């Protein structure tokens, strides 16, 4: 793709000369003459794509939430706030919201703490850097279908690896995905394994920017490894920890794929998240209008959480 002439507007990596452009008009320049040199010509593809596939669905979803639209497009009669009042009185909305909050809490804590531990350990520069990074980060790159299948196999009751290990230690096996008190926690465990690598890399990048002289000063004061960890490393990570927590809470709230594939929300509704409920209502219950209303309630919650987090971070800096 590194043609010497600049024929396409956005080819990354065109090996063009980075000095001042040549005055002699080549064929490329002639092409540019036909494209107006205005902001609009730069923004047009962006405006089109975002108008069609972000703002139009946002607006039509908002309209839909005030109608009784069904999957086939039938209905579409204006019903006012009926969908919203129904949603607020729907025990399943509250149940799945509760599941979502619980999932967010039980994933965010280990996803921050374990990622931090991994990054601090790798940052010590112990030999085997490539292996550590590969094993901690690799799961993050796996498609959700792979993650779900591998873990479902580990969670199988009789010949699953986990129950076999538990029984080998004389304990009782768990109904990892079949017990309604356990299923959500099992999906959370899988999620921690799957996505911890992202936070690990964020922490690692932050660790690498800690200036050496802080460690040198600590060494002069006779600080050992633990003291260096507590008084040099950890305090330097406060800023990035805020970022990691913010990103993680927003990501955990949106959980859908792994629950859908591993438990389908069950047993009962014990592992159903709010997004999964929205999907169920819309695509298996064929009630688009109601689904859209629940979606907008969820969007409101997400925006409130994001706003609170933004307020906390800006206040911290002030």
């Amino acid at each position, binding site marked *: 793709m590194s043609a010497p002439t600049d024929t396409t*507007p*956005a080819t*990354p*990596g*065109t090996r063009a*000369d*980075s000095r001042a*452009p040549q005055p002699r008009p080549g064929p490329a320049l002639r092409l*540019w003459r036909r494209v107006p*040199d205005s902001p609009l010509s*730069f923004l047009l*593809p*962006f405006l089109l*794509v*975002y108008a069609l*596939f*972000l703002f139009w669905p*946002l607006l*039509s*979803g908002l309209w*839909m939430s005030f109608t009784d639209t069904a999957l086939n*497009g039938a209905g579409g009669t204006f019903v006012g706030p009926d969908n919203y009042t129904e949603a607020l009185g729907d025990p399943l909305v509250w149940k799945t919201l509760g599941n979502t909050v619980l999932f967010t809490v039980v994933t965010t804590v280990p996803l921050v703490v374990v990622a931090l*531990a*991994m990054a601090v*350990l790798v940052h*010590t*520069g*112990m030999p085997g*850097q490539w*292996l550590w*990074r590969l*094993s*901690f980060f690799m*799961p993050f*790159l*796996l*498609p*959700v*279908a*792979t993650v*779900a299948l591998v*873990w479902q*196999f580990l969670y*199988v009751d*009789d*010949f699953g690896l986990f129950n*076999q290990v538990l029984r080998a230690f004389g304990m009782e096996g768990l109904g990892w995905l079949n017990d309604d008190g356990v299923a959500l926690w099992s999906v959370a465990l899988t999620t921690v394994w799957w996505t911890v690598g992202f936070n690990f890399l964020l922490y690692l990048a932050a660790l690498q920017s800690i200036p050496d002289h802080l*460690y040198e000063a600590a*060494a002069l004061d006779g600080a*050992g*490894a633990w003291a260096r960890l507590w008084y040099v490393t950890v305090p330097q990570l406060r800023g990035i920890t805020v*970022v990691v927590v*913010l990103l993680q809470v927003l990501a955990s*709230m*949106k959980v*859908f794929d792994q629950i859908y594939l591993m438990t389908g929300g069950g047993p009962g509704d014990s592992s159903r998240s709010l997004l999964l409920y*929205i999907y169920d209502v819309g695509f298996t219950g064929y009630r*688009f209008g109601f689904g859209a209303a629940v979606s907008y309630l*969820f969007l409101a919650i997400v925006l409130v959480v994001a706003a609170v987090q933004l307020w906390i*971070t800006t206040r911290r800096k002030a």
Partner: protein
Amino acid sequence: MSTDTLTIRPDRPGRTGRSARSARRAELAREHARRRDLVLGGGRGPRIAALTALVVLTVLWLTPMLWGLATSFKAESDAISLPLTLFPESGFTLEQYSSLFAASNVQMWMFNSLLIAALVTVFTLAVAAPAAFAMSRMAFRGRAALMIVTVAAIVVPPQLLIVPLFQQMVSLNLVDTYPAVILPQLVAPIIVFILKRFFDAVPKELDEAARMDGASYWKLFTSVILPLSRPILAAAAIFVFISAWNNYLWPFIVTTDPALMTLPVGIPNILDSYGTFYASQLAASMIAAAPMIIVFMLFQRQIVSSVATTGITGQ
């Protein structure tokens, strides 16, 4: 091919020979040894503790995937036999893989995944880069408002749009087509934001000089800004490609025709029709994972910097 050309530092020479690479490796080893002394001090205890913890965590993190991988090379009867053994009674076999390739749509889904992820990557950058350039370099009315809207759009969970998006695709008659899978994935405000931030950091003197010579904005964009932004474009491309490859919900909803499915969508599908054949399921999931593992091996450093940049600026 040298992967060094894609690092975040643009001043690195393009080609690195074998000797230069081994020199770099030695330099890296010295750097790690120096960091060991700085972080852990000279004593032996902390080193042994750190290494032990690393080994334990690594074993825990590798086990699920390796267990799945080993099982995918077993006969079905060995996969579910008790007591569990890593080495199957009848030996390892390739039969799960060969029957998958012979009897299912795996090759087709692999092709679809590659095509869709590649097109999403190219088009996302083609849409985002000029827009980010305009927001960074050109004066127009509503620029501030456009920036605010872009940043706000980052927070909107794409999963919330599936119901109206699906209806939109139904009314456009696009369900079960490539455009339906690809187009909504081009909305990536985070990429616009990251590119704009990077373009902002390119010194304005460069484009003023070019503008003095009578260069158009397009010329400035393609011959000054884009070449200087190669590292960030590579990081963004990797990020978009991985997300598109692994995207599950939208392709799952908008495709019902097996001929148009991507790997992540198709694979749980065959499993339903096969019943619960664990070894075969696991072989299919290893096939879906393999391209990402290869991408990681090839672009490890780029991926690391890609996550660091996209994640940290993700605020």
